[in-house]
């Protein structure tokens, strides 16, 4: 079972995207992904967008919260 909130902070490529993919395979959304690097933010954003999801980006200090939904 995957969670609807994925804490991918501090994880190396491609783990943030893989965890997002696993969550979206179980739920069709909404899913929240927490990341703390620009690379992870871009990668998760690009992946979710390519699968037809909407991505809302909320910056919270060093953490970026990506709200992924249909």
């Amino acid at each position, binding site marked *: 079972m995957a969670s609807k909130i994925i804490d991918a902070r*501090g994880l190396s490529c491609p783990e943030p995207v893989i965890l997002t993919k696993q969550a979206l395979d179980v739920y069709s959304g909404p899913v929240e992904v927490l990341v703390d690097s620009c690379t992870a933010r871009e990668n998760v954003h690009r992946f979710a967008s390519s699968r037809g999801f909407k991505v809302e980006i909320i910056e919270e200090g060093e953490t970026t919260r990506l709200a992924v939904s249909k």
Partner: protein
Amino acid sequence: MQWSIVVAGTLVGLLAVVLVKFGNPANMGVCVACFVRDITGALGLHRAETVQYLRPEIPGFILGSFAIAAMGKEFRPRGGSSPLVRFVLGFFVMIGALVFLGCPLRAILRLANGDLNALLGLVGFTTGIVTGIQFIRNGYSLGRSYRLPMANGLVMPLLAVGLIALAAAKPAFAFFSQKGPGSLHAPLLLSLAAGLVIGAVLQRTRLCTAGGIRDALLLKDFHLLWGLAAIFMAGTAANLIFGGTYKLAFAGQPVAHTDGLWNFLGMMLAGWGSVLLGGCPLRQTILAGEGDADAAVTLLGLVAGAAFAHNFGLAASPAGVPLAGKVAVIAGMAVVAAIGGLAVLSVKNTLLPAGGIGVGQ
């Protein structure tokens, strides 16, 4: 497809040929493995007389990445994600690369000048990536990195400044090859400038040779792969137009050998290790510049790998691959498999895996 990644790849391919034109070794305009090995030799950590030079390109990558990351507010000192394991992976990625004779970037550049041995290398690299992907699919993770005090992020940029100072001052204690690939180099300022530009551009675009193939196979995301294709196409075009040494063949290629099996296996080890590290040697260099202390430790692993490769006769030469090098590649695969397997097992055995809160609950 985003054009920025194609522009970045084109720039790398072009600059690599320009650097060869101005003096770098053939098909070695830019090579992270070769240049780290040359720096390792220049510092006397190995004594292979033909591969010792303080290549300014590598510190250039680090400082270019550092500067542009600082400007873009992306410089962030961080680390703590299995540094020792990353050191070991970096070590064996270097062993694999020096058995092939080049990092994945040089494999692309070699192919762009007609060296067909590189094709086997790239097939091996892809095979290594496919192998690494199986671990990732099973939950492989090296754990999280965390914010670290500022000094952690500044070590590599300061070390880079020190290396450039040494390259300019040429002190008596540093070693500079009088013959062989180490004696061939573009003017210092040109190498440094190219390194800075490439470092900055790659920091912005996240170009990664392992990531390009990994994302295409694992996620059907071809973004980074376009960058690699651009390196190859720009390199080929530049070599044909003004390189002047294009030769489509296996035999007689510069700084290369024709042992296909070990070209394949060496790069397979490099690809496998790179995937478990989350990026190729080039990408690790860029990450080290933007404050990633784990990537910096990986670079030190590359340095140690280069030192061992030449101190213990593991590295290949145009004459071929020594037996010790073959043994080291096989041993490296066993170590990388063990690291990957243990990481997967530790994730499977815990309810709260390193790979993110929630998954597995």
